């Protein structure tokens, strides 16, 4: 009687024992994740295959060690395609529209649909739009505060094209590098930020 009781207790202890738990491996976890998604429209499961940047940022909690950071930033800057004709600024009115639009690259978007930049989701820009997010810094008076020299234009272009050029593992999408926006669209956004007549600089 006593023996069997001890036996039962031991089994119970084993069954409930902390040490019995081994966490799933990274491979197992990724397999479960991939099995949990499917292609729909333009959004394919292959989007879950992480790039080097995504892997490193995930692994280091978006704060990679110095050497990794330097490597990622260098690689990001190398992706930037500057305007071939040296023309930085487009039409700020079209830029405002791009900043307001959040469509693009979702499974609900058609491959032909023109994507927006959705800047207002995260940034303040013109003063008239009160519905803006705060994930990114305010860009109100961006050009007024920084001027419109070649250096500012070059930096801003690269920042929009691939944000990781200056801040690896930034939260911002790579609008040029990832093919979200066209060169022409980025030019309009540049005007929204830098044109002295843009509502951003009023």
């Amino acid at each position, binding site marked *: 009687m006593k023996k069997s009781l001890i036996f039962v207790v031991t089994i119970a202890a084993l069954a409930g024992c902390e040490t019995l738990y081994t*966490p799933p491996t990274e491979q197992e*976890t990724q397999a479960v994740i991939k099995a949990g*998604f499917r292609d*729909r429209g333009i959004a394919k499961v292959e989007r879950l295959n992480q790039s080097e940047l995504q892997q490193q940022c995930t692994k280091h909690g978006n704060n990679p060690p110095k050497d990794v950071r330097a490597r990622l930033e260098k690689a990001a800057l190398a992706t930037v395609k500057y305007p071939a004709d040296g023309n930085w600024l487009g039409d700020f009115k079209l830029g405002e529209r791009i900043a307001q639009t959040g469509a693009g*690259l979702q*499974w609900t978007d058609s491959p032909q649909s023109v994507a927006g930049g959705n800047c207002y989701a995260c940034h303040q820009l013109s003063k008239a739009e009160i519905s803006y*997010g705060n*994930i990114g810094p305010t860009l109100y008076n961006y050009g007024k505060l920084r001027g419109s020299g070649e250096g500012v234009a070059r930096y801003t272009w690269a920042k929009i094209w691939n944000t990781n050029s200056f801040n690896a593992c930034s939260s911002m*999408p790579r609008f040029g590098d990832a093919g979200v926006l066209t060169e022409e669209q980025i030019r309009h956004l540049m005007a929204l930020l830098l044109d002295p007549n843009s509502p951003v600089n009023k």
Partner: protein
Amino acid sequence: MRAAIASAALAATVAGAALAQDNTIIQIERYRQMLQEGNPAELLVVRGEGLWQEKRGPKNVSLAACDLGLGAGVVKGAYIQMPRYFADADQVMDFETRLVHCMVSLQGFKREELTKTPYSGAGQRQTDIESLTAFVVEQSRGAKIAVPQEHPQEKASFDRGRYLFYMRAGPYDFACSTCHGVDNQRIRLQDLPNFEKPEPAQRAFATWPAYRVSQGALRTMQWRLWDCFRQMRWPEPIFASQATVDLTTYLGVRAAGGKMDSPSIKR
């Protein structure tokens, strides 16, 4: 809320604009308050209760024998202890996954048919899954969120969910944590709960499912994740997949102790 206002004020460099937005946030809060009276989800709770009790499906039985983790037919307080491990299915299931399991195994519905369109579209009647969810979650109102972490599979579900939460992927490089891992962040004017902190995690988890006035429909937790992934530019999460359950396990454990206040009403 007050902290959010204060930090928004600090973050903005242009004082005038910051003041304008302070007022905006206060006014939006007032709008949300005004919605609280008269939540159309109540209509769905009634319908869901009827569906729960009605004999339905090829086998013509009700869901009275459905075990949500507290024994057959126990609905009160069931929602707050899910996702959990179910021995009969040998897996961790969230409420919606378990509901489908019951509708298939007890009532004889076809799984593919149930999960093909789990969410109602514009101009459509709410699905049975949505209606039943409204009813069951209402039976946990006021109860404290207690997603279990005893069974090894429950722990594994949490660990996988945490991995998924921080995983950056897709053309926008977004992870869940991009928006939901920092205090007082907003997209446009929508607050983004930080799931690394108990209080915002509790508030968020406790208020889903919710009636979304923008859609005129009750939306479930599976829908909440699904629509986040759409906006993250990820592929489509499969309804009731293990990955979605794992993510809910992670969020639910983070929200432990929060007082359930759902179905709620949101913009």
